C-alpha cells in the first residue's frame, strides 16, 4: 500500500537520447555546470545528448515579469521544439527550472486547447518556415542525475561524509518553485515531498536537513527582483530561509534551479554587507552548489574547471571536509594558463 502511494510521486524520465537546452542564468553565473553535466552524461553514463548551437532563450524571465506576451513565448518555445525535431530527438532536457516550467505550461495548454497549438504552429511557420513535434518526454537534468544516482555512485571518488568526524554532511536541498509547484506531477516527489535532490544526497552519503522553511521561495520571483527598488522583498525571502536553516548548521546548500543557486549564493554577500550577518558560525557563509557541480566534485573533477571559484561564497572549507584535492594556485588560472586578475574580497564575508 505504502509503495503504491509513493508511486504517485514518481515521474517518467527518459533513458537515453536527450536534446539539451542551456540556461541563460546557469551558463552566465555557473559556467562550469552545463559542461560538467554533458561530460557526466557522455563520459560517465555513456548517454547520447545533443547540444545544439542554435538554441536561444525560452523568454521565461520576461514572460513571468509580464514583459513578453504569451503568444511570443509560445512561438519561441515552438522554435526550440523545432530544433529538437530537426535533430531527430524526442526527449527534451531544459537546463533551467524556469524553462522547465514554461515548457510544461505550454504543453499543458496545447493539450487542453488544440486551437492554441494550431496557432503556435501557424506563428512559427509564418515567422521561420519551421515545424515542430511536441516532445515525448520532458525531464530536468536533475531528474536524469537522480535517475542514474546509483549508477554514478561506484564511479565517485568521494562521499558526502565529513572526513574528520566520519559523520554524514548535513545538506540543505532547495528545489526551484517552477520545478514542481506549478505542475506537481512533473517533479519527483511533487511539491509535497521534493525528492530529486534529497535522493542524490542520501544516495551519496549525506544527510538532508528538514528545516521549517524548506519549501519557501529562494527570493528570485522575477518581477519582484527586476526593479531595483523592489529587491528588498526578494532579499527578505532569502533572509527568512537562512534564518530558518541557520540553527541546523548546514555544510552546504544544493539547488536544482539556476536562479535559486544565484540568489542563495549572492544574497549572502548582500546580507553580510547590509547587516554584518552570516549564517554559518565562522563568517564564511554557506556554500551553494548546483547538482552538476556536486556530482562533478564527487566524481573527482577539478573544482576550478567546474567554476567553483566564481561563486560568491567560496567552497574550500567544504573541499577540506570531504577531502577533495585542489590546487589553490590554479584557482584564478584562465584556460590559456595565464593568471586572471583576482576579484576584490568582500568586507564582511570571510574568505581564506
Amino acid at each position: 500500500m505504502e509503495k503504491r502511494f509513493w508511486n504517485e510521486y514518481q515521474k517518467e524520465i527518459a533513458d537515453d537520447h536527450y536534446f539539451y537546452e542551456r540556461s541563460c542564468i546557469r551558463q552566465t553565473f555557473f559556467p562550469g555546470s552545463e559542461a560538467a553535466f554533458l561530460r557526466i552524461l557522455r563520459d560517465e553514463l555513456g548517454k547520447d545528448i545533443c547540444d545544439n548551437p542554435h538554441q536561444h532563450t525560452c523568454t521565461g524571465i520576461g514572460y513571468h515579469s509580464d514583459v513578453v506576451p504569451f503568444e511570443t513565448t509560445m512561438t519561441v518555445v515552438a522554435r526550440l521544439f523545432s530544433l529538437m525535431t530537426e535533430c531527430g530527438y524526442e526527449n527534451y532536457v531544459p537546463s533551467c527550472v524556469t524553462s522547465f516550467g514554461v515548457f510544461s505550461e505550454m504543453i499543458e495548454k496545447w493539450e487542453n486547447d488544440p486551437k492554441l497549438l494550431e496557432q503556435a504552429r501557424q506563428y512559427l511557420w509564418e515567422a521561420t518556415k519551421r515545424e515542430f513535434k511536441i516532445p515525448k518526454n520532458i525531464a530536468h537534468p536533475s531528474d536524469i542525475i537522480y535517475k542514474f544516482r546509483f549508477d554514478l555512485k561506484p564511479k565517485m571518488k568521494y562521499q558526502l561524509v565529513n572526513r574528520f568526524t566520519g559523520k554524514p554532511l548535513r545538506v540543505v536541498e532547495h528545489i526551484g518553485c517552477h520545478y514542481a509547484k506549478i505542475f506537481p506531477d512533473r517533479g519527483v516527489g511533487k511539491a509535497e515531498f521534493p525528492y530529486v535532490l534529497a535522493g542524490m544526497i542520501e544516495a551519496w552519503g549525506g544527510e538532508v536537513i528538514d528545516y521549517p522553511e524548506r519549501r519557501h521561495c529562494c527570493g528570485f520571483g522575477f518581477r519582484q527582483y527586476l526593479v531595483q527598488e523592489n529587491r528588498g522583498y526578494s532579499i527578505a525571502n532569502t533572509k527568512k530561509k537562512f534564518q530558518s536553516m541557520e540553527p541546523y548548521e548546514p555544510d552546504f546548500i544544493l539547488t536544482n534551479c539556476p536562479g535559486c543557486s544565484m540568489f542563495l549564493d549572492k544574497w549572502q554577500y548582500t546580507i553580510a554587507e547590509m547587516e554584518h550577518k552570516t549564517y554559518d558560525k565562522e563568517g564564511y557563509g554557506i556554500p551553494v552548489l548546483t547538482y552538476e557541480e556536486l556530482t562533478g566534485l564527487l566524481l573527482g573533477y577539478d573544482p576550478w574547471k567546474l567554476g567553483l571559484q566564481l561563486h560568491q561564497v567560496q567552497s574550500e572549507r567544504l573541499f577540506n571536509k570531504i577531502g577533495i584535492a585542489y590546487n589553490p594556485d590554479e584557482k584564478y588560472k584562465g584556460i590559456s594558463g595565464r593568471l586572471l586578475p583576482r576579484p576584490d574580497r568582500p568586507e564582511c564575508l570571510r574568505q581564506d
Partner: protein
Amino acid sequence: MKKFGFEISKGRQLNFDEMKPDKVEKLLELVPSYKLCIGCGGCTAACSAAGFTDYNFRKIHTAFFRAQYEGLDEQLKRCMLCGKCLLVCPRGVNTRSLIINMRRILNNVDPVTWRPQRELKSKNEGGSNE
C-alpha cells in the same frame, strides 16, 4: 555599508519566541474585560477622533496584543477619552480604561500615581531624595 539602492524589507510574520508579552500581561491584569474583546471594530466605528485623524483603535489594541508596541503611544495621544467606544462595545470591554492603561504601561508609569516606575522603585528602596 555599501549602497545597494534597496533595503531588506521587514517581515510581517509574528515570531512568538521573540515576542515580549510582559506589557500585554500587565494590561490584562489592569483591565480584565479586555479578554472579552472579539475585535468587532465597533469602538473604531464610533470613535470621534477617527473622524478627524487616522486614529484606529482596533488596529492599536490588536498591535498591542501582538506585542508590537512601536509607535502606539504616539497614536494613543489622539484619543480624546470621550468614551463613545465604551458605550457601543457589545462585549462590555472598558475601552477607555484600556486606552489610559495602555499609555501608562507604554510610558512605564505607575498605574495609580502616574509616577515613573523607576522613581517609585527607588523611593521604596530608600534611594530617593523626595
